[in-house]
């Protein structure tokens, strides 16, 4: 097979025997399939992440390894709470009163977030507001189904948020896949991949439900029980294994600072 220019996909001619498939109604499809799929695909590392030899201005060649040279390799650590209980309580109060949501709508549930900003619901009065960058946000609302492709971005964004950080799963899709339970491309259980503090069920949950969910989250924070970030750090290998199990082309460092 010819390899396209700059393609990271190399296709082989190997013919795979295909078992009889079922159609959506569960009826067996004809056993002899004219034109069965007969290609396999091998994943290659992304070109920009590959090691490369580079010639410096002084003419000396050296190796650049992007994942090592361009990204911090350190993993997450468990961050202790403040030394004084009273200080930590103050912080927890402030955290609960100041919830900054990352403005990242992962699925259709994002549409239910908008009304929260409107006069009708006005989440601002509870100290909730939206930030455009994960660095400044501390709540990540996974708003609905999460496809594998989006999951990759969601993980990056989550890891780029600062400790303590919270995740709210919004809608049935984040809980068990919802109506996408048999989809080939959406995850079914969010808490396999990110530490979820609160799930808000429904398809879709109404803004009132969201507000209720945020109130619950606040209570958890106030009580010092919303330690998802530390949990993620503690069980980092487990989370990472789960993530990598479905993200086949893991093309980023293990932890995205």
């Amino acid at each position, binding site marked *: 097979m010819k390899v396209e220019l700059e393609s990271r996909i190399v296709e082989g001619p190997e013919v795979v025997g295909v078992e009889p498939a079922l159609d959506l109604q569960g009826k067996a499809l004809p056993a002899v399939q004219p034109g069965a799929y007969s290609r396999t695909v091998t994943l290659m590392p992304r070109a920009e992440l590959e090691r490369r030899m580079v010639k410096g201005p002084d003419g000396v060649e050296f190796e650049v390894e992007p994942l090592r040279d361009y990204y*911090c390799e350190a993993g997450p650590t468990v*961050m*202790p*709470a*403040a030394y004084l209980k009273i*200080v930590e309580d*103050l*912080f927890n*109060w*402030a*955290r609960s*009163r*100041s919830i*900054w949501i990352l*403005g990242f709508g992962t699925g259709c549930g994002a549409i239910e977030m908008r009304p929260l900003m*409107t*006069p009708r619901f*006005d989440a*601002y*009065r509870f*100290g909730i507001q939206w*930030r*455009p*960058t994960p*660095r*400044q946000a*501390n709540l990540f609302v996974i708003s609905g189904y999460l496809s594998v492709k989006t999951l990759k971005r969601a993980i990056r964004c989550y890891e780029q948020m*600062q*400790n*303590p950080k919270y995740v709210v799963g919004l809608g049935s899709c984040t809980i068990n896949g919802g109506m996408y339970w048999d989809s080939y491309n959406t995850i079914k259980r969010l808490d396999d991949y990110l530490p979820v503090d609160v799930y808000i069920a429904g398809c879709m949950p109404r803004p009132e439900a969201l507000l209720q969910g945020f109130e619950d989250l606040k209570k958890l924070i106030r009580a010092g029980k919303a330690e998802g*970030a530390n949990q993620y750090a503690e069980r980092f290998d487990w989370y990472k294994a789960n993530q990598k199990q479905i993200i086949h082309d893991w093309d980023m460092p293990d932890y995205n*600072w």
Partner: protein
Amino acid sequence: MPFDWMKIPYALLTLFIVFNFGMLLNALIQKIGARVGRRYGVPIWQNYADLIKNYGLRSSITHGVMYYLGPVFRLTGGVGLLLFVPTIYGSEMFSNLSFAGDLILALYFVFFGTLGMALGAGESGHPNAAIGITRGLSQVTAAELPFALAVFSVALQYQTFSITDIVAVQQAGFTSWTLFTNPLAVAAAMLSFLGSMMRPPFDVVLAPQEIPIGPPTEYHSSYLALMQTNRAIFPIAKIVLYMSLFFGGAASWPVFFLKVFAIYMVSVLVGVAFPRFRVEQSIRWFLIWAVPLGVLSIVLV
């Protein structure tokens, strides 16, 4: 020259008052903005919660030395600007550290924080930060010009660069405010003021949806907290300058609070009513509408 050590606690007192005033004022402004949109708005102490939270965040990252120093520069700029200008006219206590320099010092010290912030954001390596800075700097070149002209016009009018002296002349009465004696300069300066407050229609620098808030896009945790602190102080410090030059200054804290609030409201009122300009649009706007006023003011003064 013997240094009066008592100036330090006095200056810190000013700082304290202005900081809290700024925190509350910012929330109040947000609330007013919300009410315009028929929302209830944030609680008046919301900014404190945000600030404490940001100081209380447990983790942070650093991109390098300049990135680390950026917010320090920024806040130094704000605090310095506040302290280089006498806050309350006639009060030895609140004349702060204005012995170090006059109006021009204040004028140029404004850029101290901007420069540091720009450098810090630059080191973060984020393209949006650089884009935001280019927008900000581009806009500033046009927005600052009417202000510079107005300031110069005022200095010409009073033949001095000393802020105290300028306020002293205006203390004679309501009608001796620069607002009435040199209206063109004040008009130019107030138009420029709109541009420097980072509110619509001149907030393309931050543009949250387009270049996720521009320069501070990588800043978080305590860095962001320092910058939030600055956001409470810096606008007030700047408004103090406006108040002293154009609106008769303040001889007491209540007058101070009132005037600062009123001046701040100008930009808020404009901000809630107008959509955002692109950079080149705002540059043209300043050059076409504000600069001629400034030019007239220095020619006619």
